[in-house]
């Protein structure tokens, strides 16, 4: 087997086209920026009394920018399509990688086609497809979601086992053929090998599964904690608000890294403090759900108790299984009753990330609720005799959804950064874990000689966080149009 070049025979045609379109796009953007500094085009009256405006330089730059962007997208699409269709190896690394991601491309195309077709019926989500920035962000996020999904569910996309080390592949460059390949193994390390001779590409794919699973879940938990505490703090005010705000400020004044170093060391884990924190923090989602449903069905005698009982039973069991971990001080459930156990370190990382995020969410929720509490519909509900929790959860919360959804997207990105930070300092997750932070940490020691092992996960993390931020920006823009 020969080593793969970056683009193979594809490159002779497409590489020049790519550079030309990138250069055109950069020129057009620069032109747009310069044109926007010039005064707006003048209106000229015509003999019949109507006005006519020339588009001028600004219009020209806009058109050029649009075509350059389309050209660039077309070239990128050509790389992917041609790479997936051409025989293995002839389209180089780009082609082989594009082919491995084929299920993701197909799913992306399906989701985008369906969403754009039905966008007028999809509310805020549908309007996302009116903004280019939002669409790009959504595409990036969805790319990683599908990658993680197909890797965890079917083991697709990755070419090797993310943990196995193949001899002779230490620090090899991208596209290197596997020496003495075992039977049936993929013939190349597509993006090179790391300093323990593991496949960088497969580790990146496997890392996405960890990040895409933990980051949104941790953010969701942080939101439930923050909202369950923030709404009453704003609504009732007084002493409760003072105490909760003081506590939130206390956590916020802690430098995050110091907190991680204090919480996620093996000695602290041994004392069980993270497990106890998990016990406290994970109560809030149950409280949130129970209060949410109870305040809704309080007046409906027949439904109230069954709904509450089922909710508490299901979430309570999940809670107990989540909290009880063999090998930690909190271990009380019999293995037969324990539904699942979370593998080494992930629970602790999860807890510390939730803990760091909740005070910020508390502040945001409190701020929104302070504003909403003065609205007329709240006064109307109070006059009607509704209970405080009904007003908070069913009158105020739905009206705060716009800013909360936007912040949720941003915060998933921030959580991803925090997870990466933990991995970068080798905290919490096991050292062989393929998550992006840990891989960057592994790769940075040989960064100036073999940069690929750290660059690949770094760019993956960047693209996911950038996607989330762009998505949040698009959502914000579209929700402001209401």
């Amino acid at each position, binding site marked *: 087997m020969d080593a793969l070049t970056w683009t193979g025979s594809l490159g002779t045609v497409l590489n020049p086209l790519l550079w030309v379109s990138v250069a055109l796009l950069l020129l057009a953007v620069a032109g747009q920026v310069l*044109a926007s500094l010039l005064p707006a085009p003048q209106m000229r009256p015509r003999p019949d009394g109507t006005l006519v405006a020339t588009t001028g330089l600004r219009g020209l730059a806009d058109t050029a920018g649009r075509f350059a962007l389309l050209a660039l997208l077309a070239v990128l699409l050509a790389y992917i399509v041609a790479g997936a269709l051409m025989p293995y190896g002839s389209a180089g690394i780009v082609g082989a990688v594009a082919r491995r991601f084929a299920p993701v491309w197909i799913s992306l195309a399906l989701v985008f086609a369906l969403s754009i077709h039905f966008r007028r019926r999809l509310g805020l989500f549908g309007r996302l497809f009116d903004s280019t920035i939002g669409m790009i962000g959504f595409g990036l996020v969805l790319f990683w979601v599908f990658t993680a999904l197909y890797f965890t569910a079917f083991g697709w996309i990755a070419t090797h086992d993310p943990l196995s080390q193949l001899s002779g592949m230490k620090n090899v460059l991208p596209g290197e053929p596997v020496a003495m390949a075992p039977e049936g193994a993929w013939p190349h390390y597509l993006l090179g090998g790391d300093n323990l001779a593991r496949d960088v590409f497969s580790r990146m794919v496997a890392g996405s599964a960890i990040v895409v699973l933990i980051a949104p879940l941790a953010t969701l938990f942080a939101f439930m904690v923050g909202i369950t505490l923030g709404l009453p703090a704003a609504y009732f005010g007084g002493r409760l608000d003072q105490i909760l705000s003081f506590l939130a400020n206390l956590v916020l004044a802690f430098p995050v890294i110091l907190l991680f170093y*204090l919480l996620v060391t093996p000695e602290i884990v*041994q004392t069980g403090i993270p497990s106890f924190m998990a016990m406290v923090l994970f109560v809030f989602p149950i409280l949130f759900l129970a209060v949410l449903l109870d305040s809704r069905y309080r007046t409906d005698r027949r439904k109230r108790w069954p709904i509450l009982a089922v909710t508490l039973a299901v979430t309570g069991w999940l809670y107990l299984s989540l909290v009880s971990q063999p090998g930690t001080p909190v271990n009380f459930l019999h293995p037969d009753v324990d539904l699942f156990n979370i593998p080494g370190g992930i629970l602790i990382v999860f807890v510390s990330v939730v803990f760091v995020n909740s005070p910020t969410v508390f502040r945001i929720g409190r701020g929104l609720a302070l504003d909403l509490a003065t609205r007329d519909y709240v006064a109307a509900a109070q006059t009607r005799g509704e209970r405080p929790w009904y007003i908070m959860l069913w009158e105020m919360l739905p009206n705060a959804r716009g800013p909360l959804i936007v912040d949720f997207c941003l915060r998933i990105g921030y959580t991803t950064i925090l997870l*990466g930070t933990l991995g970068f300092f080798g905290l919490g997750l096991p050292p062989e874990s393929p998550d992006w932070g840990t891989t960057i940490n592994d790769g940075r020691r040989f960064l*100036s000689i073999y940069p690929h092992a750290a660059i690949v996960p770094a760019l993956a993390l*960047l693209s996911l966080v*950038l996607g989330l931020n762009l998505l949040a920006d698009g959502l914000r823009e579209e929700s402001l149009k209401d």
Partner: protein
Amino acid sequence: MLRFIAGRILTMLLTALCLTFVVFFLTNLGPNLEKVAKSEIGVRISDAEVESWLARNGYAQPVLVRYGEWLGVLPGWTGEAADGTPTGRCVAQDQSLEEADRFCGILQGDWGYSTVFRAPVSEIIARSLALTGKLMFWVMAVMVPGALLLGVLAGMREGSRLDRSLSTFAITTTATPEYVSGVVFIAVFASTAVGLRWFNGSATSAMEDITFVNFTLPVMTIALYGMGYIARMTRASMAEVMTAQYIRTARLKGVRFRDIVLRHALRNALIAPFTVIMLQFPWLLNGVVIVETLFNYKGFGWTLVQAAGNNDIELLLGVSVVSVFVVLVTQLISDIGYVYLNPRIRIS
């Protein structure tokens, strides 16, 4: 105003007290102390020996008492060593009990002794803070003007092409944590394999002599991440000011656009960024830790990692006190500054 400031300072002191206690509690948990005992007298000792060593060295007292001693509000413990000589928290070697001070905590300026660096904690912290101070100075010098310029240019014509391009740039930088941009910068600008070799990938030499070559990458890495956030806040604030009535009046009067931006809008638009810049300090501290680790610059962040990684309790406590103090003081400045700068807020 005075009452407001006094109230703020009181809250700050209370917060500082709570935070330092949390740090003290977490660093002085049983397993940590056991590790200290083992590193002092040997790994293969029995539990009973650990217990007696802890008791002899004052670790067996209740946490609150030891916190008081460390703080310097309770008298330091005294006892006898195995050979009968008097020992104590404040008793140095070859010193009798009468000669020693009764109190020796951080309030008295006694920050303890680092077990990793074999030097007094105050000395190490002073040295590393000086190094980090240099780094922060250059970061601020790059970040603040850059961010304000970006934000004002983007916010003065909301929705224009310039605004869109600059906002996208700002979003990209906020999405790039320091460990990503640092890695990319090193690979592109400092790598011996593929890169341009314009700059150094390590800032160790910058500790003696700062040059453009060895300090650009660390400074840019930190500045870039904070820049986007401040720029977005400035943009939002500027865009809001530009829709105000008095701006419209100025335009209708026929004031030039440049004068409107520079004379009328800018001053009011800079109130919000001021608080944001001050509140950036906790995040900058994060960036400092990452960048100093990545570029091997032995400043404050690097010291934090070393102290935490090696279970150096007193050094870690000292580092925590300083970082908590920095965060709280900047919060205080931002609160007071906001009230002082904003003519619409009056506290009677």
